């Protein structure tokens, strides 16, 4: 049971962090729950589909289907997060200041919500497909310990949900005005980290070999598998043995995002933002 708890918790942990951040980011947007729950549900359904076709998936692209699939969905998440950030740079301040007509804010809020719902869905899909495969294997195996494994899995899921809530309420303790800046930085680093992870999957598939040498090894200082290491891995893309290409892409995403935010978000900030 403990093993099941740990496995499920480890998978759900990352998705929990991401959902917590998305919930905090969309705190003031109407109907956000509908979108986020939709994202989670779509992710769960997708995870089951991926698990069901896991065999076929891994056979694709000369056995590298899994790696390329992961790289592809991470890239989708990176694009969505960047889009969200750029969109928020333009409209976020007005929304935070609640200076807009409510109806318009809802309509515009939904546009960015779609991007975030996709991010949530992708996170659940990625982590969930492993949980689904694992639990399916447990269900398929003979009787006895299956019940306790399911119980363990359920507890792992609950703990993962707790991570989500802790992240959410932790972020909410930040004063509203600072929250906007904090989450923008957080989402930029989240996106850069995901892009670096996508690179790592392409490297594992041997699709990307340039700059493939490990630049440094800090596993002695902070292992990627410790709780802190995993947290930082998800939040800012910490890797204890990054390759050159991972660093390049990481920096590129941060630079492109800030450039786009400046370019598109810099049009006259129409109103001073009311102090939160």
């Amino acid at each position, binding site marked *: 049971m403990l*093993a099941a708890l740990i496995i499920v918790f480890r998978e759900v942990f990352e998705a929990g962090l991401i959902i917590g951040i998305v919930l905090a980011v969309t705190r003031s947007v109407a109907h956000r729950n509908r979108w986020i729950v939709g994202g989670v549900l779509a992710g769960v359904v997708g995870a089951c589909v991926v698990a069901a076709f896991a065999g076929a998936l891994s056979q694709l692209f000369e056995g590298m289907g899994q790696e390329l699939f992961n790289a592809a969905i991470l890239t989708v998440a990176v694009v969505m997060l960047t*889009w969200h950030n750029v969109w928020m740079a333009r409209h976020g301040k007005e929304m935070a200041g609640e200076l807009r007509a409510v109806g318009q804010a809802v309509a515009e809020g939904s546009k960015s919500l779609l991007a975030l719902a996709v991010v949530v869905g992708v996170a659940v899909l990625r982590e969930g497909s492993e949980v689904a*495969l694992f639990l*399916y294997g447990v269900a398929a195996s003979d009787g006895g310990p299956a019940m306790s494994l399911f119980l363990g899995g359920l507890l792992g899921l609950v703990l993962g949900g707790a991570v989500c809530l802790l992240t959410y309420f932790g972020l909410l303790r930040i004063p509203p005005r600072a929250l906007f800046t904090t989450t923008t930085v957080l989402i930029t680093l989240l996106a850069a980290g995901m892009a670096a992870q996508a690179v790592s999957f392409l490297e594992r598939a041997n*699709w990307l*070999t*340039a700059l493939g040498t490990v630049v440094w090894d800090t*596993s002695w200082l902070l292992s990627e598998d410790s709780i802190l290491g995993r947290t930082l891995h998800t939040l800012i893309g910490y890797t204890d043995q990054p390759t050159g290409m991972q660093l390049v892409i990481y920096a590129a995403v941060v630079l492109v995002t800030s450039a786009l935010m400046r370019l598109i978000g810099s049009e006259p900030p129409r109103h001073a933002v009311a102090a939160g």
Partner: protein
Amino acid sequence: MFASLTSRTSITTCALAALCVAALLPLSAANAQQATELQIAYDGAFQPNELRAPAGKPVTVKVKNNTSKAMEFESKTLKVEKVIPSKGEAVVNVRAQKAGRYEFFDEFNEKARGTLVVE
């Protein structure tokens, strides 16, 4: 305003797509380096549970899962992680390593362990 916003959004997307494509360009050299090929079977335990490979060369490990459950071939030190469905087979690419002993295991059943000895 919406139109201009949409076009800007697509510029954003294009820029990112271009970035991704640029990142993929140098991959023509992929597989140029000769990899050491190894095979391992899994039936609740790894057979054999010790693999050997020369240092400084990439390694590909063909893992065959003979059990009725999915497994995840994982090694923290080799930085590999791959789900292998029941009765399935998968290829795991390992980048060139320094000499040393590298542990791997089934993440869904951590009692099953093995070692890759790079020398």
